């Protein structure tokens, strides 16, 4: 069911707006936002200062050949939800003072862009090289009789320009590596479409979308062949399965392979050609992702599954964990789910990791290779098998006292505030795990504090709580190395950078989400904002991805999270963690 599709709403529209038989002129103020209605052959949607929406959503159930014309003259940025277009991008920033025209095809189920922001090229018109600089959007289309063996991307373009190269020709073709930031495997087959985004900072194009080649068992039984696209998917089911998966020795730079399974039988992923020598078994429900790095000639494992055990599962074996099956094994312990000793398995490979999380009242001890590591309630500790295949403790614990104000509690409720802080701490530790940091945070208390009358901005509690006798008393009693405060003051998040023991406090507000904590604690641990020194969406540079920047981590587009000459945030925090963990 669509909005505005009922007779009543249609009548309201007819009465309110200037409506012709099948077309309508609309603005955000008329719609109350940027969602365009169904039911029209043409919509002209105009945005300007005072009549603005941040995002435009196209009609979700349009007629065949329906047309939408967009134009923004607003000072603020406007994005188009482009997920139902044929561009191969999720969203598109609309340039000011230009008209965008989109037409819908029920055959393709997609919107196609035309107009003054769009080039539509083909080999017969423009040859094998797409001219530069192109308009914001370029379609380059090949077909039988209008084909070249190799297509070359524009030499230059405006930042974030989009080029879509597609082919319906019978003969195959290539997209030249020239001007691609990473020369991945860009082979064009009939029906293929590739989308590239221009990165002005690198003066090169990166991939946004590519055809997915799905391989089946008989194609990989002797190993996965060299990819024919940057995106290869292997998805096992019963009847489509092999027992050993071997990644190819050679691939295009930043080619990616995903291996999933819903099969009854398990498989093993061979370590050959992979920059990980640990255990990689593939069970039903598991998923591994790999990205080929041409400079090392290895596949990086960018996502992997985990095996999970309860402490109670280990009671019968006196706490002995069974043989490792995945790159990461997690053991939960708590009251009622407890063993006194957990013994890490003898059967493992270098790089395998075991993470023990305990909420038990009593201390448990992790034992491995003649070593004993006691763990107390609330701790999350990671153990890794080193190059010598001996288990070693990978992480230390930094204790946090988490505070919320009485005003925040009055606004959202006591239970909501506690849930927010639990989720925020979980996101923070997830990010530290993703980034392979050498420490984790532990909550040693969740307490309410009165918001003082003078606390208008976060700067006030951030300063005052350092010397608040009650809070500092709690901190000493609980041995909290640091504080995190969430209130209702103005702002989103604020923290001291490179904090000493006195100033080890970060803060957030209920006006913002739960990803704030990981960013602000990053400040406490020594990190500034890293725009320009790290991948744009990492935690300290936009806070969209659950990673701190490090040179061994990669974004989906292939860029390292720390570029050459950039800031290794994980190394910075790791260097401080021992000192911070000793604050109390």
């Amino acid at each position, binding site marked *: 069911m669509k909005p505005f599709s009922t007779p009543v709403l249609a009548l309201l529209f007819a009465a309110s707006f200037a409506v012709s038989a099948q077309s309508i002129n609309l603005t955000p103020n008329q719609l109350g936002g940027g969602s365009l209605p169904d039911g029209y052959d043409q919509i002209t949607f105009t945005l300007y200062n005072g009549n603005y929406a941040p995002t435009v959503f196209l009609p979700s159930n349009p007629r065949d050949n329906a047309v939408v014309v967009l134009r923004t003259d607003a000072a603020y940025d406007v994005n188009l939800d482009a997920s139902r277009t044929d561009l191969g991008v999720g969203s598109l920033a609309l340039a000011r003072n230009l008209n965008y025209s989109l037409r819908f095809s029920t055959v393709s189920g997609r919107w196609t862009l035309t107009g003054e922001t769009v080039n539509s090229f083909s080999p017969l018109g423009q040859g094998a090289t797409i001219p530069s600089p192109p308009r914001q959007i370029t379609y380059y289309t090949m077909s039988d009789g209008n084909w070249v063996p190799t297509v070359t991307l524009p030499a230059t373009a405006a930042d974030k320009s989009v080029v879509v190269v597609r082919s319906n020709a019978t003969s195959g073709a290539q997209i030249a590596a020239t001007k691609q930031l990473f020369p991945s495997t860009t082979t064009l087959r009939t029906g293929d479409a590739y989308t590239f985004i221009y990165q002005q900072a690198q003066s090169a194009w990166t991939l946004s979308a590519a055809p997915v080649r799905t391989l089946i068992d008989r194609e990989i039984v002797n190993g996965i062949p060299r990819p024919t696209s940057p995106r290869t998917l292997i998805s096992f089911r019963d009847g489509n399965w092999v*027992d050993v998966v071997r990644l190819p020795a050679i691939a295009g730079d930043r080619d990616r392979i995903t291996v999933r399974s819903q099969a009854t039988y398990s498989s093993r992923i061979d370590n050959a050609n992979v920059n990980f020598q640990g255990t990689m078994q593939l069970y039903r429900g598991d998923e591994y992702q790999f990205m080929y790095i041409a400079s090392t000639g290895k596949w990086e494992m960018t996502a992997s599954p985990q095996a999970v055990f309860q402490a109670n599962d280990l009671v019968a074996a006196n706490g002995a964990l069974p043989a490792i099956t995945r790159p990461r094994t997690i053991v939960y312990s708590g009251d009622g789910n407890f063993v006194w000793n957990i013994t890490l398995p003898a059967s493992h490979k270098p790089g395998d990791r075991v993470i023990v999380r305990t909420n038990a009242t009593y201390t448990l001890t992790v034992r491995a290779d003649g070593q004993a590591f006691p763990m107390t309630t609330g701790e999350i500790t990671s153990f890794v098998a080193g190059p010598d295949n001996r288990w070693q403790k990978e992480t230390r614990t930094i204790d946090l006292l988490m505070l919320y104000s009485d005003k925040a509690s009055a606004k959202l409720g006591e239970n909501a505030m506690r849930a927010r802080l639990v989720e925020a701490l979980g996101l923070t530790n997830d990010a530290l795990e993703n980034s392979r940091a050498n420490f984790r945070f532990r909550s040693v208390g969740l307490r309410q504090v009165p918001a003082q009358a003078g606390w208008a901005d976060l700067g006030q509690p951030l300063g005052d709580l350092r010397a608040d006798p009650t809070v500092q008393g709690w901190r000493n009693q609980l041995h909290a190395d640091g504080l995190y405060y969430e209130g209702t003051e103005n702002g989103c998040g604020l923290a001291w950078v490179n904090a000493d023991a006195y100033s080890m406090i970060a803060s957030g507000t209920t006006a913002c989400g739960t*990803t704030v904590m990981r960013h602000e604690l990053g400040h406490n641990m020594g990190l500034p904002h890293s725009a320009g020194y790290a991948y744009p969406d990492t935690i300290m540079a936009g806070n969209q991805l659950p990673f701190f920047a490090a040179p061994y981590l990669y974004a989906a587009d292939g860029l390292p999270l720390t570029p050459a000459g950039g800031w290794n945030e994980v190394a910075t925090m790791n260097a401080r963690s021992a000192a911070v963990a000793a604050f109390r």
Partner: protein
Amino acid sequence: MKKPLLIFVVVLLAGAGWFALHRANEGGPHRRPPFDAPVEVATGVGANAAPSAPQAPTMGTTAPQASPSPPLPLAFEYADAQPAPDGSFAVRWDFGATARLHPGEAVRVRLPFAAEPYTAIVQEASSIEGTRRTSGRLQDDRGVDSWPFSMTLSTDGRYVTANFQTGAAQFSVEADPRGGRLKDAATEAARLDNDAQ
């Protein structure tokens, strides 16, 4: 996909049976605690994942044939009728269903900037400070990508805070029985600040 009749849309549909697609191992039975203490529960995918079928053939043509899978419910959907002026979307959340989600189960999640719904596969569920935190991966069914998601349900089961990472954005959700909002967290990035000591 048709838009919903209501301004906000359906969410985690009720009924644990709906979610039983990939129900996996959840750990062994609870034993009597070794002391008089509250029970702590945590579950996860792959517990006791015993090596299966060591005599399995090397290629799948002789492996068991697939049985039809039950359809996945459309579990959570943003209200695509009218985003608010701040860019957020109204949502409605089924708190009972959230409490019943188990590792190995999968639900459909529809989010902005994606033409098709994602499949959210639950990997872990744990009880922390009386809350229930569930986390897992959000899969793009037609592509090679997946991203993390997590949600925490309050002790009284009447408030949820959730985060969904996708290739296009980081979305946050806050909901209580009166309703909820889904926001693109990118709007917050410019408001995060720091102080020098």
